[in-house]
């Protein structure tokens, strides 16, 4: 027990050490003891516990006080020779106020004269809060309808959608203005054997492309990417364009709405890097033999990366 209290105290101490803790990736649960927010959390827990304790003590004190008051009232009543009637508790008062119910002792006054297989009915008032809730929802309903369909003060769903898209566009424009992305010049795109980029591309390939082209590029639903046959051109520019624009007729989707330009470049680099690797179970060749000197221009659509990013 003593140790635990000491531990709690040590949590409160290193407040000054917060600034030095510069490991941003760690979440609280990785290292709760040294986490910069730990003292704050601990303090909050302590405050919570103290609050509960204060409440408990206060309620007990009130109860004690209440017994004294009651006793005094009883004595007073006895001295005056009248019957002592207990004050109803605040809970009973609140309950009565909310439900406007006839007290149980006086139930007979609202008992209806019917009897259905032994079931009697009281005729209590409607609980006031319930009645006002009902009125409130009706008023709310009328206002809602007027706002949307009479005065047209609130956007209906199509307008709401347009607003949402416009807001996202504006945000993106602002972001682009603040931190321009190095655009990818598709015209000048050239394959480099950069291991870092290729390994990034490989990760993207695994999670997005492998379901159709298989893990090692041997092809499945999509064509083999490791042989020398290509349907839409085998140059880096062709591959980038195919990734970006897709081949909708054949089920290759356009990845430009899903991958960033650098990501599309990296995955294209990875695809270049696996050419000629002869993986197991290759899919039969599709398309024509590709020679590095050709450039299949018609499938490369020129359209600037900035324009796409600003979409």
């Amino acid at each position, binding site marked *: 027990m003593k140790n635990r209290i000491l531990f709690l105290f040590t949590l409160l101490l290193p407040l000054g050490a917060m600034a030095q803790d510069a490991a941003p990736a760690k979440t609280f649960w990785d290292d709760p003891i040294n986490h910069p927010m730990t003292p704050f959390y601990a303090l909050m827990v302590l405050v919570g516990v103290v609050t509960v304790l204060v409440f408990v003590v206060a309620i007990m004190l009130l109860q004690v006080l209440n017994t004294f008051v009651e006793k005094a009232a009883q004595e007073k009543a006895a001295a005056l020779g009248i019957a002592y009637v207990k004050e109803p508790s605040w809970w009973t008062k609140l309950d009565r106020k909310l*439900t406007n*119910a006839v007290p*149980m002792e006086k*139930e007979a006054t609202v*008992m*209806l*004269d*019917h009897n*259905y*297989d*032994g*079931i*009697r*009915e*009281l*005729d*209590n*008032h*409607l*609980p006031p809060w*319930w009645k006002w*809730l*009902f009125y409130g*929802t*009706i008023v*709310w*309903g*009328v206002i*809602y*309808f007027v706002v*949307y*369909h009479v005065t047209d003060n609130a956007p*209906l*769903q*199509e307008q*709401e*959608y347009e607003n*949402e*898209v416009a807001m*996202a566009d504006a*945000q*993106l424009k602002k*972001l682009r203005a603040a931190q321009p992305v190095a655009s990818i010049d598709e015209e000048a795109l050239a394959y480099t054997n950069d291991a870092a980029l290729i390994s990034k591309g490989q990760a993207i390939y695994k*999670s*997005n492309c492998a*379901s*159709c082209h298989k893990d090692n590029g041997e092809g499945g*639903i999509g064509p083999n990417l490791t042989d020398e046959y290509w349907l839409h051109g085998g140059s880096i520019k062709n591959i980038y364009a195919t990734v970006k624009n897709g081949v*909708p007729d*054949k*089920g290759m*989707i356009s990845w430009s*709405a*899903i*991958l*960033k330009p650098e990501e599309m470049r990296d995955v294209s680099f990875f695809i270049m890097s696996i050419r000629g690797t002869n993986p197991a179970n290759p*899919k*039969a060749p599709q398309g024509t033999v590709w020679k590095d000197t050709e450039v299949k221009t018609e499938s490369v659509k020129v359209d600037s990366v900035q324009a796409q*990013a600003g*979409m």
Partner: protein
Amino acid sequence: MELEKFSYDNKIVKAFIIATVVFGLVGMLVGLTIALQLVWPIFNFDLQYTTFGRIRPLHTNAIIFAFVGNAMFAGVYYSMQRLLKTRMFNDTLSWINFWGWQTIILAAAITLPLGMTTSKEYAELEWPIDIAITLIWVVFGINMIGTILKRREQHMYVAIWFYIATFVTVAVLHVVNSFEMPVTLFKSYSFYAGVQDALVQWWYGHNAVAFFLTTPFLGLMYYYLPKAANRPVYSYRLSIIHFWSLIFIYIWAGPHHLLYSTLPDWAQSLGVVFSIMLIAPSWGGMLNGLLTLRGAWDRVREDVVLKFFVVAVTAYGMATLEGPLLSLKNINAIAHFTDWIVAHVHVGGLGWNGFMIFGMLYWLVPKMWDTKIYSNKLANLHFWLGTLGIIFYALPMYISGVVQSLMWKEFNAEGFLVYKNFLETTVQILPLHMLRATGGALYLTGAIIMTYNLIKTAYAGKFIANEDAEAAPLTTAAHGGTGWHAVLERKPLVFTTLALVAILIGGAIEMVPTFLIKSNVPTIASVKPYTPLELHGRDIYIREGCVNCHSQLVRPFRSETERYGEYSKSGEYVYDHPFLWGSKRTGPDLQRIGGKYNDSWHYYHMYDPGSVSAGSIMPSYPWLFEQVIDKDGTAGKISALRTIGVPYAEGFEEVANADMDKQAARIVENLQLEGIEVVPDAEIIALIAYLQRLGTDIKVKDAGVVANQ
């Protein structure tokens, strides 16, 4: 005055009680199975009759119509005789009601796994069964009204009001929603199409909850709760106001199931405002129940029957506050299509209906067998297992719903969806689905314990088949209460007519304009009827119950248009008999799936989803590759659809199969190019054709939205 002697029919109640318990266990077991399927696809057993898409409707139908339905009949048949001081109108009708209902359930249990379904939620049963339901329901109605007319009690008690409202409304809902065009004995097309079908279906679906799961159970509450508590009902005037406001307002709220759909905005808004106005009328029932327990709360601690009732009524109050809140557009935008809704209905189903039934059975069985409950301890154990079951079910599903929804909607600073692959969001919530299955298992365990307890109780006692009673005959002289409502309570036929009027108004105001005013559904010139092959594919999609997991409705949210494509327009659905919007996305939306992948992707994906999407929980559909398309049925389908307004040219039936062969040959060729050999008549070809067509009509060049004036 001389007392008349007569007897109450307990035998019919006993029969309905047995059916309740048996079908309750079956329905819950199927529920547990589908819960497991959503974590481990192996529980689909690789059989076409036991895939999730086919047995999820079996679960909902078994619980709603077999478990809750039989319990409703049991409770109504017992209480109505006593509240009206008479035996049921006609014993033969009672037994036709019983056996007819069980036959319908049996027919459902056979046809649903066979894939015979209309696909409309909670109305999946095909047209011959629909007719049988109508007939049996009318038998129930005649028996009920007859009993009311020969009553010895001058006034109808509040429970009877609710029974009357239940009878008339369910009749109207069922008949209107089941308008369908038969093609064969077990295949039909909904009379309505697209957005209109959606409106009718959710007017029905929502009010099936209102008038099959709620009003009869409020009636039961008004009988069994004061009986068990031995306390007078709290407030007669609250009963009156909440009864009439509840049945009048409930019927309007259906469109809240279609928020952000292509239903006209005005109809959606009606759904929103009437849902909010429904809070107080619903809570009126809860308050009248809970306040009736004033002065009996000390007994709630000991009496297991009251314990069940208190939790039931509380669950009712929670669900009926949550429902209206879910109808607010901004909350609905998060909750719709997610597990949140599943949690919501199970608070109602497990909490309100289940616990009302359990409480009622623990009260009825000892009474009818003239003994005491066999074991109070076991009943208490059941209570706690059930309560824990509800908590373990609902909490994980709330979390899972919100987590998945937020994942669907999350964008990064670059404006890209963070979780582009839908599957990532599915995998994320699987642990929560495991917890949910645990909750379901606890609840089922409780029900099994109850079954044992009730059987032991019955064996310990002696069944009273005909309970003797006596009462004075009905006098014509009015007594008690001269208020307008007291007068109404003496006139059952006027009362029934007024209830009917109250429930017709809302539906009529929402439906008539949506059907008659063309601008409510702007047509799109490029939208054409399905080709015969696509039509067969669509029927396979319906048969396999794909709609249970996949929606076909892209809502106008940026997160959805980025993920799926252009948001849906009502003109796109004008030939969809029935509509297939769905109500839950366990998998991604399919409205824009057409042309997204190539034919071989679909081929491999349907054969083994995991091979294309690693970690997918979708079952495999190998039988689609062996079974062939039913070409003999093509002509019948075309002419049935033409009858209900799809513009197929006269005589198209004759060439439909040739047209189909041509389209199939193109797909077969595409697959051959990918090295896949397939039977040209295999069902998979039709399904691929349908999937590739989905949502592509508006991409056709020169498509324009023209409002038909």
